[in-house]
């Protein structure tokens, strides 16, 4: 049984090193490609700069006005921050907030 343990230990350590070396290589590749960023996913970064471009629409002020005035006193303000992203269902409650964004 101790022999089993020795075998296991040998194989186990070998596998762990193999896995982490593979991971090391993959991360290095990842970092390598990350330094010359492709155009593909770059928008992830640009869009996530506080969602600046989110509100692309003229005349938003009036719309927000209407909606906010009606809703802001209700106790669900925190939802406005919690619902990052643009989920339909989960933002159902924000219907009045009408945060203008590129829908």
């Amino acid at each position, binding site marked *: 049984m101790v022999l089993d343990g020795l075998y296991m230990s040998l194989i186990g350590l070998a596998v762990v090193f193999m896995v982490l070396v593979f991971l090391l290589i993959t991360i290095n590749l990842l970092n390598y490609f990350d330094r010359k960023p492709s155009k593909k996913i770059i928008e992830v970064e640009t869009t996530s700069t506080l969602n600046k471009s989110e509100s692309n629409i003229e005349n938003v002020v009036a719309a927000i006005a209407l909606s906010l005035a009606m809703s802001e006193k209700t106790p669900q303000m925190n939802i406005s921050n919690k619902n990052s992203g643009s989920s339909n269902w989960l933002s159902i409650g*924000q219907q009045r907030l009408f945060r203008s964004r590129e*829908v």
Partner: protein
Amino acid sequence: METDYINLIFEGFIDIYNNPRNAIMWLIAGFLMYFGIAKKKEPLLLVPISFGVLLANLPLGELVKPSSGEGEPMGFLLFFQENGLHTDLLPLLVFLGLGALTDFSPVISNPKTLLLGAAAQAGVFVALIGTLLLNPIFDFGLLEASSVGIIGGADGPTTIFIASRMKELGNSLGVGVQDIVGATAVAAYSYMALVPLIQPPIIKFFTTKKERQIVMPPPKREVSKRAKILFPIICTIVISILVPKASPLVGILMFGNLMRECGVVERLSSTAQNELMNIVVIILGLAVGSTMPGEVFLKFQTIAIFVLGLVAFITATIAGILLAKLMNLVSKEKINPMIGAAGVSAVPMAARVVQEMAQKEKPGNMLLMHAMGPNIAGVIGTATVAGVLLSLVPGLIG
């Protein structure tokens, strides 16, 4: 013994070699993640769903395999499929949170819009019939047709609810049924996210510029707190009498809404909207994603489901618009027919689309609150349709 060790190192590769479809699913999972994360489309559901797809397709499927006899419990995600999806718990708990998140006052202040929410259900049935017509090609029966049709309801949890029930129904009756829970759910959430692309051209095609410029004045009267409290109670009773099978969906949705509106259980309402909702969404998303191992999802049927789902969304939009135009023929108080398109649900996306189009056609024309009416009515309508399907289908396939 040494073979064991070699097996250990290569069993993953061998499994991929034997099940190459699983590796293809990684790409699909990656695409859904890209759609959810980079494009920010329905991320709250698509991120968990897509990772669920990935986890279900890893070599040996550790997270979705049944309990072995050897002290291994069933896979983590299979556990939630069996105890969360098959029991209806997760979709209903999402409905609880949605009820607590939804403000029904647009419907209460302008109940006529309920009819537009009803019209949009035509999409469900058109897709249902379409699915049946494709039976010779794809071997779709009434069970699959119901699941595909409900995509047109544009309502994620209802779609998951019905698709699970139909699958269980077929399995328990020994009727052959394809496992399309995952495909229909992904189709529903994807098209909900794509509503801003799908609807505008249809709306333009079916309305004149003059119609799109119809101005609707703000509602005359605000909704009293009392009406908001009574609405969920009445709604539960009325719908449950007429379509008892709809009572779980409608009842739980309305209980959530009562907690929201009654004003005395703020802490319960807040938890239902937030922490409970989040926990349920994480688990529901993973569980739904994990229903899509490669051999289940990578079929021609899946393409058909996506096509039919799109048909359902389009038809629902058209039906809403046409009924709105019809109502304008008989009523003197004109409504902007664009708000009919919001009847597909996809809350609140579809209503926003209408608002933006209205702003472009005639700046200053505030249609948002008017569009929220059919938008929310569409949720009630789809829950009702779900009840009808649950009532009729067992009798027809039995």
